[in-house]
């Protein structure tokens, strides 16, 4: 891993086309800005990795039998309330 020290307001350029800027420090958090072409996917690593892992778990071979599921009940499966 390449390790560089930057102060808030300073930036790093990756591959000549992706710019990572340290925006500011907020206590223990570092606010990071990323400029890249919109085709370049940018994600928080842990979310990316957990979805990647889930995709691999989900992949099936030879389309197995699906257990009988009810799509929606008359009282539909509620998601936990959205944070507003």
């Amino acid at each position, binding site marked *: 891993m390449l390790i560089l020290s930057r102060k808030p307001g300073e930036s790093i350029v990756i591959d000549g086309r992706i710019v990572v800027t340290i925006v500011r420090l907020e206590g223990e958090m570092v606010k990071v800005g990323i400029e890249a072409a919109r085709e370049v*996917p940018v994600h928080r690593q842990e979310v990316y990795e957990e979805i990647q892992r*889930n*995709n691999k778990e989900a992949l099936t071979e030879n389309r197995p039998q699906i257990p009988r599921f009810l799509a929606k009940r008359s009282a539909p499966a509620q998601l936990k309330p*959205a944070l507003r």
Partner: protein
Amino acid sequence: MITAEMTETETTQTEGRDIIRLPFGLLGFEHVKQFVLLANPAEAPFMWFQMLDDAKQAFLVAPPSSLVSDYQPDISDDEAGFLELADPADAFLLNIVTLRGNGQATVNLKGPVVINRRTLIGKQVILNNAAQYSLHHPLTAW
């Protein structure tokens, strides 16, 4: 006796089916860029999102509206722009279901596959509001 050798034309499994293109593949499967969607009425609302180049490999998927209510996926403007979704009605969502055995299954609500129904171009999108949804939302067996 001369026997004429007959070769049968192999029917591709994708005959008459639309190919859905994912320019970025799926997370962890970035090299797999073409899929077909197989829908057997007996399995509705579930469908198989099958790799075009390997018919043995497929993901079990379903539209989120068929599995949960009040799903409000927040897709970033950049993602919507990339998929050319001028109209939200152009977006067709499929969420990936994991079969867990014993009649259990979970669905990934954090990262749906978003497809433009006009262009058939899609992408697995990590929602802006992914934090409020589960990666392993349980589906109950009937």
